[in-house]
């Protein structure tokens, strides 16, 4: 299953090309949505609720209408009949509560930052000024901020018409739990909190909408132009074929732009009502409240094991904060973790229960990893706790439980089939690069000396399910769409190639990687290929970009489309070479007759001949263009071993990451440089959850982390130099052997860091530090001992 990684590949695939899109992205000499200027364009600003929960009793927009430069001012009432309800496409259970979600609040607001009115003005400044003249009367209602309290009898209710804050409960169970837990020699109970995170993509959201004839052109900084088009049609009733959605260059999303937002719906409705183009660009502070958040779970975990460290069973009970409304895939996000709490380990029984809870906070939804980081954190933290409990090295306890490489394909207790992997190889490589034994010796030495700076080693042997997704599986999970992806290839007369993909990049480097795939399959130079994406008129079919799906699904669609082009070209080449088709060989872009290498037609020559169409075989249509739609049979299961060394200053609680080794196995690699970039960025984001980031609400329900001074996003200066390497277990479920890599680093790194901190402090009686592990929290854990000082995240150790 596992081959050593080859440093040089013969073709484009495997080549560490620099990304061809970067020059324009880095210099900004390109089209971001906010750069778009249209004749007569006006600017939109939204007035947002300062209350977590309140009834709107009056909205007076008259004074604002008279402000200089103002064209129109609207309240929710003005759109009540046409704005519909923002969509939730993932009703995870039959009895799920999906509350109405008006784009512009009409009678009640349910989180700070919810839009209640909007101003359309000649420029951004006039729009912002006029907001201050809108007068809204609110009748404050009780905020709902704590999930556990929200479920108690008598709690204030976010959506009073539904009478409960429980949106749904979803259950999965496999194996004999009673047998697994009865008389188990070791039972660990833990409570971990996945704090709420703010995605904070570099480019804020922006929307431009232009009425154009009987069509609406809508540009949006979105990850999902295709899904957005369908949803805008369904929400507003405007016919789908009259909506064209364009995602120009998009500066990051991390899931936060996998959404159908109020501002997108309203810009469309405003353009229709006013008959002129409108633009809205989010400010950073506005985005912290109006763009969806991620994570926010309380995890109650019970693990049963033998004294020798072998796991018997695992019970997972989650509370997942939905926020105030269910957005596009809000309720499904925690369920993406349902199949991952078992990690890479074998066990006899497993249960998972997730309760979705409404609170008066910004809605949650996909954020890099989406459900899998939460699950991976839980199991990888538990494995370290188990190791401590039974007195084993954390790597050894994992070794005793993980799926051995000869056992693939492996049907897990959570009902998935892992196609390939080699946890032994990745772990061995990581230990060597990390100098594991040397660091363990240093740790012992520091403990002996009572050094104020203690050293901890964190282990994370993760896997994840990505490449979303087999359509039939999505169907069985009540998801509202399929998981296929589409690609088409246009052979131009001069031998150049246009590749069209439905998977639109927002920073991932598709334009480079897709050209590499097509170059190898078609035998044309990399430079002769142009990749088109992100416009529903140019790339008419697509399921877009999220869930580390682009390469494992969209890349395969492209590969298959290219093979169709080659097949068509082979027929024409055989005709031109006056040979039988079965005697034609295709290599390096040349069709030749077997055994007669000097008689050949290049792909470009064939393309020109097909364009001219003067001399084609009978019945052959004059086009090489092809398309393909790929629906995977299974998810993709990248894995890896991450090791983190953290120095913890026991006098101040400050944590310094000293070294970090990530050995990832993402199957075959198209571009090692892009993979490394994804891993680095992913690590930074996962480390950020462990150490820095948290969306904090005060007791009134105000978000207090509305600037990057309060919401700490780390920079390169705060992170160690990462050591990255790979092992290679090709995926067996797609012809390129590739797996997803977009989320792996984020998923793996959070538990590696927290495990390292706890490992450093175990002699101080610490067995948990709540995330983010701020210096103060680390210091409190040390001074109060046993990690229970904060009382919020750890159950007892029976």
């Amino acid at each position, binding site marked *: 299953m596992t081959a050593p990684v080859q440093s040089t590949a013969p073709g484009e695939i495997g080549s560490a090309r620099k990304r061809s899109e970067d020059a324009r992205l880095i210099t900004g000499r390109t089209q971001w949505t906010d750069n778009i200027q249209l004749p007569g364009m006006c600017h939109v*600003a939204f007035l947002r609720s300062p209350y977590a929960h309140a009834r709107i009793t009056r909205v007076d927009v008259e004074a604002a209408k008279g402000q200089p430069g103002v064209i129109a001012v609207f309240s929710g009432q003005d759109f009540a009949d046409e704005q519909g309800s923002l969509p939730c496409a993932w009703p995870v259970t039959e009895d799920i509560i999906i509350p109405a979600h008006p784009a512009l609040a009409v009678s009640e607001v349910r989180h700070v930052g919810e839009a209640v009115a909007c101003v359309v003005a000649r420029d*951004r*400044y006039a729009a*912002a*000024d006029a907001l201050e003249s809108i007068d809204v009367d609110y009748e404050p209602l009780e905020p709902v901020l704590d999930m556990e309290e929200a479920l108690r009898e008598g709690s204030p209710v976010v959506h009073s018409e539904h009478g409960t804050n429980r949106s749904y409960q979803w259950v999965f169970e496999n194996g004999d739990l009673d047998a697994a837990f009865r008389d188990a020699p070791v039972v660990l109970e833990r409570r971990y909190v996945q704090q709420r995170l703010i995605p904070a993509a570099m480019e804020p959201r922006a929307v431009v909408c232009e009425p154009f004839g009987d069509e609406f052109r809508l540009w949006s900084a979105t990850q999902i132009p295709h899904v957005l088009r369908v949803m805008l049609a369904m929400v507003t009733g405007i016919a789908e074929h009259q909506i064209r959605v364009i995602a120009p260059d998009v500066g990051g999303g991390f899931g936060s732009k996998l959404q159908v937002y109020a501002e997108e719906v309203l810009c469309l409705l405003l353009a229709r009502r006013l008959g002129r183009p409108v633009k809205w660009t989010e*400010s950073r*502070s*506005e985005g912290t409240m109006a763009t969806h958040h991620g994570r926010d779970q309380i995890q109650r975990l019970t693990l049963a094991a033998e004294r020798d460290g072998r796991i018997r069973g695992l019970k997972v009970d989650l509370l997942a904060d939905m926020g105030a409304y269910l957005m596009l895939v809000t309720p499904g996000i925690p369920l993406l973790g349902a199949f991952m709490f078992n990690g890479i380990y074998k066990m006899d029984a497993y249960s998972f229960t997730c309760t979705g809870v409404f609170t008066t906070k910004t809605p949650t939804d996909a954020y890099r990893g989406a459900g899998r980081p939460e699950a991976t954190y839980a199991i990888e933290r538990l494995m370290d706790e188990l190791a401590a409990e039974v007195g084993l090295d954390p790597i050894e306890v994992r070794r005793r439980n993980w799926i051995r490489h000869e056992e693939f394909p492996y049907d897990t207790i959570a009902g998935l089939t892992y196609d390939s992997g080699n946890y032994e190889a990745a772990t061995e490589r990581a230990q060597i690069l990390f100098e594991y034994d040397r660091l363990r010796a240093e740790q012992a030495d520091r403990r002996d000396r009572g050094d104020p700076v203690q050293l901890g080693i964190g282990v994370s042997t993760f896997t994840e399910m990505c490449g979303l997704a087999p359509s039939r599986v999505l169907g069985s999970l009540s998801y509202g769409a399929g998981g296929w992806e589409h690609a088409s290839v246009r052979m131009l007369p001069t031998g150049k190639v246009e590749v069209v993909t439905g998977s639109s990049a927002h920073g991932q480097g598709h334009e480079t990687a897709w050209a590499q795939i097509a170059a190898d399959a078609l035998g044309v130079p990399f430079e002769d290929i142009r990749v088109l994406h992100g416009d529903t008129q140019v790339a008419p079919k697509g399921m877009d970009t999220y869930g580390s799906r682009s390469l494992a699904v969209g890349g395969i669609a492209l590969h298959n489309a290219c093979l169709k082009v080659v097949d068509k070209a082979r027929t024409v080449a055989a005709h031109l070479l006056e040979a039988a088709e079965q005697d034609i060989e295709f290599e390096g872009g040349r069709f030749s007759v077997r055994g007669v290498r000097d008689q050949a037609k290049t792909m470009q020559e064939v393309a020109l001949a097909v364009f001219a169409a003067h001399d084609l075989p009978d019945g052959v249509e004059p086009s090489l263009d092809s398309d393909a739609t790929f629906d995977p049979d299974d998810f993709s299961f990248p894995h890896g071993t991450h090791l983190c060394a953290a120095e913890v200053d026991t*006098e*101040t609680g*400050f944590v310094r990451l000293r070294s970090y080794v990530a050995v990832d196995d993402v199957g075959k690699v198209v571009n090692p440089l892009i993979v490394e970039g994804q891993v680095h960025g992913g690590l930074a984001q996962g480390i950020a959850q462990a*150490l*820095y980031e948290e969306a*904090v609400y005060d007791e009134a329900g105000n978000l*207090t*982390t509305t*600037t990057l*001074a*309060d919401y*700490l*996003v*780390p*920079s390169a*200066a*705060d992170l160690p130099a990462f050591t990255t390497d790979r092992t290679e277990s090709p995926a067996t479920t797609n012809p390129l052997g590739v797996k997803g890599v977009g989320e792996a680093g984020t998923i793996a790194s959070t538990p590696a860091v927290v495990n390292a901190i706890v490992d450093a402090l175990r002699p101080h009686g610490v067995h948990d530090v709540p995330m983010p592990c*701020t*210096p*103060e929290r680390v*210091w*409190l854990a040390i001074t109060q001992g046993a990690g229970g000082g904060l009382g919020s995240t750890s159950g007892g150790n029976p």
Partner: protein
Amino acid sequence: MIPAQFGYVRPESVDEAVASLAEAGEDAKVLAGGQSLLPLMRLRLAYPEALIDLDRVAELRGVRDDGDALFIGAMTTHHDVVRDPLVHAHAPLLAQATATVADPAVRHRGTFGGSLVHADPAGDLPAVTLALDAVFVARSPRGIREIPAADFFVDLLTSALEPDELLTGVRVPKLGEGWGCHYEKFHRTAQAWAIVGVACAVRRSNGTVAEARIALTNMASRPVRAHAVETAVAGGPVSLDAFRSAAGAAAEGTDPPADLHGSAEYRRHLARVLTARALATAAGAP
């Protein structure tokens, strides 16, 4: 966010700037590097009616030797302070602390005088000027006024400047022979403000501490001198144990804020630990 409308004046000399400020009245603000003021305006937490932009007042930039002190022009950027040879030679504590301010982009725009007048207790430079007994020089239509650092910082975001006064520069006494110094900044990320900072200068003589000056960042609504610690270490040995013992008094007289990054109790604890460390580094304690 988008700032509200404001008037804008761009004088080219100090005289012109002082006149503009007097004319604009109390609701005008002086714009130096804009690294603090502009974010406040964009968040609509500040609504100045007019900005007096000092960017073109060349005479406010630069460091010059002023005998037993350095005179640092108010519009000298952090970047220029960090690179200035006179600052390195005579006020290394200032160079050290300035190098920790925010990030390179901010240090290229942000100015020495601007960050002092902003009087943010979490800013790094107020404590440095307090520790070094710097003197602030202000101009107004009424003339020149000199204000000792101990009197300059009045309260949260409030300096002793009158509305018509313009800070032209700061006189920073030179440290002579035998002085060592250190700025100990504790923050969660490299770009973040100090949770606590300790500006420390120590003069050694014959193996003992002859004199120590210690000022704390973000331990009250303005920078505070740790006089009790200064007194406790004076005349004592250069040793970490002695410094730890003396630093037990570091939080005396402080009134630290509580925020997302730390409680008041945690800040007091940090002040004690970091003061001992700052003393040890400044004094070269073994």
